[in-house]
């Protein structure tokens, strides 16, 4: 508990440094590209176009989802997924990438996963702005439900930071973990309801247990929550069980993560 508190406090104290250093990630990744940072927006946009075509047009044949066009239904969940995916994968490599840099200086090492988070967040805001315009064109209008965005956003950040703390530390020791995580994320994509509407699936309607198992997964919780928020289909406090499941997972991840992080820190010179 003390450990988790210590790590969290470090994030708030070094807020400025995190934000200032976040931009270097991008700069060095896209240094040799002509279009530079535009790729970070262009790449997800191309993906959205593909899913719209494959799922919206071909598979679902433009059938409305929860009363909206497929694209309007896809966007709020998809951009959250895209953000979470790149952050989970980025954070797991963040420590390996930077640890040699900070090994010879005083530096709050626990802020390294946050830097990736701050960096990815910039893209998320851009994507959110673009998709709001598209959603508006497809008939989505602001409603009181949009207030929930604050709640789900906090959920998302808490989950991603706790995950980042665990994965970044393990990846330093076992590099294979990143590769494993990459494959896991492939699976997560399909079972988190990013492009499928599980609510309107014949097989799942017959076996509702499947959806309840899928619901345990935090990615699903956030993606569905974002959808409910923007499409105005439900309030988060209506499902108390989901709230408890989600936050107890976060609590466990955070306590374990900060423990292994601090253990790692006290001897990180040995690991590299």
């Amino acid at each position, binding site marked *: 508990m003390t450990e988790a508190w210590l790590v969290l406090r470090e994030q708030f104290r070094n807020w400025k*440094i995190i934000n200032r250093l976040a931009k270097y990630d991008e700069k060095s990744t896209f*240094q040799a590209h002509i279009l530079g940072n535009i790729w970070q927006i262009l790449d997800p946009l191309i993906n959205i176009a593909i899913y719209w075509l494959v799922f919206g047009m071909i598979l679902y044949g433009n059938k409305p989802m929860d009363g909206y066009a497929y694209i309007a239904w896809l966007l709020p969940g998809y951009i959250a997924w895209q953000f979470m995916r790149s952050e989970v994968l980025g954070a797991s490599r963040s420590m390996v990438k930077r640890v040699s840099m900070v090994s010879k*200086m005083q530096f709050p090492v626990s802020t390294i996963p946050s830097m990736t988070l701050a960096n990815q967040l910039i893209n998320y805001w851009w994507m959110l702005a673009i998709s709001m315009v598209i959603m508006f064109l497809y008939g989505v209008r602001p409603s009181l439900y949009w207030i929930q965005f604050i709640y789900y956003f906090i959920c998302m950040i808490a989950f991603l930071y706790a995950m980042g703390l665990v994965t970044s530390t*393990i990846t330093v*020791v076992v590099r294979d973990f990143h590769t494993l995580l990459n494959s896991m994320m492939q699976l997560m994509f399909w079972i988190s309801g990013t492009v499928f509407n599980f609510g309107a699936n014949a097989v799942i309607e017959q076996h509702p247990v499947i959806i309840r198992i899928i619901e345990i997964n935090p990615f699903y919780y956030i993606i569905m929550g974002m959808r409910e928020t923007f499409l105005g289909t439900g309030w988060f406090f209506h499902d*108390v069980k*989901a709230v408890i*499941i989600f936050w107890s997972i976060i609590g466990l991840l955070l306590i374990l993560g900060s423990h292994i992080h601090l253990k790692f820190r006290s001897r990180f010179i040995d690991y590299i």
Partner: protein
Amino acid sequence: MEKQLKISARYLTKEYDMMKTKSDMLKTLMPFGNTKIEQFWALKGVSFDVYEGDSVGIVGLNGGGKSTLLNIVSQIIPPTSGELTVNGTTNIISVGAGLNLNLTGRENIIMKCEMLGMSSAEIDAKMDDIINFAGDQVIGKIDQPVKTYSSGMKSRLGFSVLVHQDPDILIIDEALSVGDAPFFEKGVARMKQFKAEGKTILFVSHSLSQVETLCDKVIWIDHGRVVMEGSAETVLPQFEKFQREYNKQSKAERARITHESGRSFDLEALRQEHPTEPASYFQRRLYDQPFTWATKLVLTFLTFLLAFTVAASIKDIPFRTAVMEPLTVVSLRSWIILIVVIVAMVVGGILIHNHKERQVRSDD
């Protein structure tokens, strides 16, 4: 005027795990269970004081704990136990300070300075000095990615950024061996300038002549303990004599001595040697402690809550019903089985733990 105490170290210890394989590394991170990994004590209760304006050299054989001590004093790694008070900002200068290869030299300077907590105005003001200090080759390539630099240029750039910080306490770890002779001269001149400004300097070097020119006071550390502390004239000749003696021994013999000495240490024994000192000096820090009981309790509660809610969710029982009548979620028989299993695990865990402790004691 009384000189201000800058660094005060009391009974610093540092324990390392001897990690030979990847799986050992993974084991050390595990929060649960006893892991039988060999321990190595790099520091065994080091105490010293450094006052404002002192320049202190730290000498010792390879593997004697000098670098560990510097890393602890500069707060890069925490000690296992002991008390460290540092009044003022520290800055460690060492070889191989990392640069981002994809960024240009200028961007790297800005990034490193930002990491060290400088404001944009300060960085702008120092930029030209830093670039000029790094030498002509670097000036020509300052706006090109660092991956095009030679290794000498990279280390000079890194060194240049570090010597342009303005700390109260400067910690130098073998850093003057960077680059060619003219650059070395520049480095020494800069150190002397720091000294003239009345800054506190901690200096580690294998070259005893460097230590002699730069330091007034010398601390000699061997096998994790302070052997001698005093003026350069008294300590250095003695150390040189010791070094000559030691080098006569065979390589295997030296390795054995280091290995043995790393194992023969006990925190409790150190505490008993100094009964008048507060017990807090000899307690392990947060980082090296296993989970406390409170944390374990919270973890168990969260796990239980998670399992219970998941069970309720899968059986599709409303939350209120689940809380009021927990038997609907998990039947009485399953409850009993669950409790028996948990109790068995806890008892088993305690037994195994005690058994292992007894074994460790009989090993001693």
